[in-house]
């Protein structure tokens, strides 16, 4: 093909795409929100902000040890169950795991007094009791995402012998001083967290959402351009809308929990320094003796590797592994790259420890 023919052909393709963009663009604007979280599940327990789901097994024979996924308190758990064929939960179910999820509803004003203690010493243990009752198994693997990972670490460190059989963390911060932008924004010198919590009660979701967006202020606009460019591609648009819906679906944070997180972790960095006290007990990462897997993302703009890398060296477990994978804070767990990179890696590690 000559250069002139090639140019004509490429122009013709671009005109085709432009026409398709017009049609599909109208379709995009008029269609409803994408369905998410479609894996069949029972709601085993609800109490205020706490939701415990049990997903219906998809195989006849499951691993003995059930898995409890602990979702981050800022976002909805359906990021891990976006759509059939694009769902971490579905992948685990097909791989033979009995999957439970501790998800969060927006805390109501009356829950503004919830503290980290409520999450670590009440919600997680209650879920584990419910799972034991449901499955007849006393062992459970706990897998926490982002701040859900922090809660899982705190629970495991404080539970001692009664803790989970295995601990899996995804992008879990330990050294909060390394979350540079969040550190600057929550600077003790300028940020009056008491006034914020005393005024609002629970921290509004818009505030949480804006702080995440501000980490990469140009990315929303760039994503819109990329969407327009790919709007002819149904698969791209479907996945974009699912992720976009989730990204905008931020939860408020319980006021006292936020105040405590700011003062103890962001200002005091006490999980890192070993001075954090929860429910009257000091949190000692060295007390974690269970097998631990920490999966971190190479390009995580929310929890940079410098903030996450201290977990594995500090836990007291002999069986401990850190896996660094390509991807970002969300794409580590959800989407096509996660399906190819992280999900099989987790299955490989967890399967042999779930019998």
């Amino acid at each position, binding site marked *: 093909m000559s250069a002139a023919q090639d140019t004509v052909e490429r122009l013709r393709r671009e005109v085709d795409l432009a026409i398709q963009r017009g049609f599909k663009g109208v379709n995009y604007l008029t269609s409803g929100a994408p369905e998410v979280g479609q894996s069949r599940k029972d709601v085993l327990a609800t109490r205020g902000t706490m939701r415990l789901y049990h997903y219906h097994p998809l195989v006849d024979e499951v691993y003995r040890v059930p898995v409890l996924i602990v979702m981050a308190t800022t976002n909805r758990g359906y990021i891990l169950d976006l759509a059939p064929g694009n769902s971490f939960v579905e992948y685990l179910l097909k791989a033979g795991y*009995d999957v439970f999820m501790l998800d969060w509803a927006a805390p109501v004003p009356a829950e503004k007094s919830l503290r980290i203690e409520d999450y670590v010493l009440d919600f997680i243990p209650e879920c584990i009791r419910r799972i034991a009752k449901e499955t007849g198994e006393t062992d459970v693997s706990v897998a926490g995402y982002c701040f859900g990972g922090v809660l899982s670490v705190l629970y495991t460190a404080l539970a001692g012998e009664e803790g989970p059989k295995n601990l899996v963390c995804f992008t879990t911060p330990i050294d909060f001083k390394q979350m540079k932008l969040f550190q600057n924004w929550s600077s003790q010198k300028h940020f009056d967290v008491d006034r914020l919590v005393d005024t609002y009660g629970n921290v509004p979701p818009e505030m949480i959402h804006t702080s995440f967006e501000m980490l990469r202020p140009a990315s929303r606009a760039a994503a819109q351009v990329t969407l327009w*460019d790919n709007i002819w591609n149904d698969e791209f648009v479907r996945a974009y809308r699912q992720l976009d819906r989730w990204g905008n679906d931020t939860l408020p944070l319980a006021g006292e929990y936020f105040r405590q997180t700011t003062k103890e972790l962001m200002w005091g960095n006490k999980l890192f320094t070993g001075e954090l006290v929860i429910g009257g007990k000091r949190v000692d990462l060295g007390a974690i003796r269970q097998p631990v897997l920490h999966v971190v993302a190479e390009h995580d703009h929310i929890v940079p590797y410098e903030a996450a890398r201290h977990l594995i060296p500090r836990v007291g477990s002999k069986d401990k592994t850190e896996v660094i994978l390509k991807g970002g804070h969300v794409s580590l767990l959800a989407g096509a790259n996660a399906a190819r990179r992280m999900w099989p890696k987790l299955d490989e590690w967890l399967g042999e420890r779930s019998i």
Partner: protein
Amino acid sequence: MSENADNKGGKKQERPKGPLDAFRDLVGQWERGVNQIANEAMGNEQFSKLMHGATSAAAGAKAGLGEAMERYLATMNLPSRADITSIGERLQAIEAQLNRLTEIVSTMATVEVAPSSLALKPKRTRKPPARNSGAKS
């Protein structure tokens, strides 16, 4: 919780090459450049001071407005947000109590139905598939 635009959406590899490729590269460069400059700007103390000045002003305005609204509602003999929240708290305490009672009742019921319900559940005897050794990350 936005990530790089490349991480949103599904596969893009099938898109044919075209004259807009230069524009796409430009968008990518613009995104990276603006994010980098903004992160540098937002990482200094002055930004933190300005940001919290605005947040404090908004919180102050909200508190002032809340007090005025509360006085107005009291005059109109209507419940304030604080009153509704207090009712909510009491309802939640009742709900918690009900949950505890439900749990006790279901525990008693489970003892009776356990054998049949367990029979419907999958066997918990799965073993991991044999894997090639030496495939460490």
